């Protein structure tokens, strides 16, 4: 049953509460997931692999914007903590390394490489909701978002590669290129 919510509204009023119950929010979430899923698959059909590049750029811009207010640092650990705050609980990740490797980071010339294990991810859930494969344009939105956020916080150049995706977690490699943008 759809409940008709009636009230008074003037242009300058900001509602204090958004109203509705958890079922309403869940419905809204699922509709958004379906929209995002079909948008992403249509984009892929029309522009092929170019879709990933477009969406990556969009994500990167979002990441830069979202991290503007964060404290600048050249410490990767701190940057990762701040990135965690920007991404929020819906993108919960941890640093990851094989058991035999000593530290989390590997230095390669002017680059530092670190692996991140994404455990909770709204993008993955959206793809599964719509029956779409992982590693498509929507995933690139998140990669762009991460890169944008880390570039903003550290004032460097970064990139993210996918190592492996699964239904419960995805492993990514974040590469930081020192020496400015």
């Amino acid at each position, binding site marked *: 049953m759809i409940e008709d919510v009636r009230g008074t509204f003037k242009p300058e009023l900001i509602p204090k509460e958004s109203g509705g119950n958890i079922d309403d929010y869940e419905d809204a979430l699922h509709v958004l997931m379906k929209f995002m899923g079909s948008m992403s698959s249509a984009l892929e059909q029309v522009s092929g692999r170019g879709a990933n590049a477009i969406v990556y750029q969009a994500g990167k811009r979002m990441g830069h914007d979202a991290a503007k207010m964060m404290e600048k640092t050249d410490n990767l650990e701190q940057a990762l903590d701040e990135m965690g705050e920007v991404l929020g609980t819906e993108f919960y990740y941890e640093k990851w390394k094989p*058991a035999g490797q000593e530290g989390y980071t590997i230095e390669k010339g002017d680059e530092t490489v670190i692996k991140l294990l994404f*455990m909770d991810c709204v993008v993955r*859930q959206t793809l599964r909701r719509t029956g779409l494969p992982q590693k498509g344009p929507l995933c690139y939105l998140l990669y762009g978002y991460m890169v944008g956020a880390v570039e903003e916080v550290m004032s460097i150049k970064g990139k993210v590669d996918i*190592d492996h*995706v*699964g*239904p*419960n*977690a995805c492993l990514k490699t974040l590469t930081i290129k020192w020496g400015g943008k």
Partner: protein
Amino acid sequence: MVEILIDEDACVGCGSCVDDCPNDVYKMNEEKWKTEVVNVDDCMACLSCHEICPAQAMTHKNIHVAKRLYIDRRVNHVLERII
């Protein structure tokens, strides 16, 4: 710590999990022709092996279970009553 159990009666020895796992957690036992867990420390609980296994022969214990937002709570509720 992650624990992986293999149901040897269910495993058909296809080797898909061995090929799929990026961290070489499994190896084929060539005598029994069943998979075996040889490197549990490197398991990151991605569960792609669960998706690929045709026999649903493995169980991962003590892992972070990702938020499953794609399952509608109302559908879940109905499923709980049926299963």
